[in-house]
């Protein structure tokens, strides 16, 4: 009878496939990861304010145009002059301002006006529009 020498060597599992997978995962997460925090502006909608605002005083209708031009009660003025012209029409600092968008205005134009009014401490703004486009 032939007796073969059987050597029972402990075979270590190969780590290479695992390292491959780990590297792939690492590259994936490095590519999709986004660092830093997003800057935001707060928008409080009428339902959040929970109040019915009474309109007082002369008309204060701003129409948002494209670029740095806005229309106040039908006459076009540069955005920089808006706050001063508005204050002359406001019976109180908290008086309501009505904002409407023209067809050519984009979100940046709207945001520019909102931020400008906010910087001038004019925060009671109502924006006209429909909800049937979605």
């Amino acid at each position, binding site marked *: 009878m032939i007796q073969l020498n059987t050597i029972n060597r402990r075979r270590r599992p190969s*780590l290479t496939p695992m*390292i491959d997978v*780990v*590297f792939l*995962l*690492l590259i994936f*997460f*490095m590519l*999709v*990861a*986004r*660092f*830093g*925090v*997003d*800057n*935001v*502006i*707060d*928008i*409080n*909608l*009428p*339902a*959040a304010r929970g109040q019915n605002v009474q309109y007082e005083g002369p008309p204060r209708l701003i129409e*948002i145009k494209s670029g740095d031009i806005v229309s106040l009660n039908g006459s076009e003025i540069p955005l920089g002059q808006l706050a001063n012209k508005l204050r002359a029409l406001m019976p109180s600092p908290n008086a309501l301002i009505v904002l409407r*968008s*023209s*067809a050519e*205005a*984009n*979100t*940046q*134009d*709207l*945001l*520019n006006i909102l*931020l400008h009014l906010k910087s001038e401490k004019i925060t009671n703004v109502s*924006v*006209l*529009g*429909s*909800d*049937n*486009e*979605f």
Partner: protein
Amino acid sequence: MNFSKTSYVSEKENIVPMINVVFLLLIFFLITSSLVPRPGEIIDRPFGLSNSHAKDPNYLFITSSAEIMYLGQTGETAWGIIKKNKPGSLTIEADRNLAAQKFISLLNKLDSMNITQLEMIVNDPINEPQR
């Protein structure tokens, strides 16, 4: 004379420290990254100065062509999820070239759904972050 033989048998490099580092990096990226499904179209965020940071991870994306995306869903499906979930607040990432009338319409729709607290993501006009 007795010369000792120099052994040229190279020892295997120890890869365990490298694997440790790679695992640590992997764990770091797993923890810090957020996998929010984003629309295929690139969104150019509007510019604006703000000191406050996004608190709400509930992102609503709206592209320049007025396509909305919420939790990876678009169109009516996305609106259905918003109606069902009724999130108290949303973080809106809108394209700066989106028609203002469409954006106002979006705000009105969210208002009608009693979604009261909104945050809008803006980019610093001076230091625009890289995408």
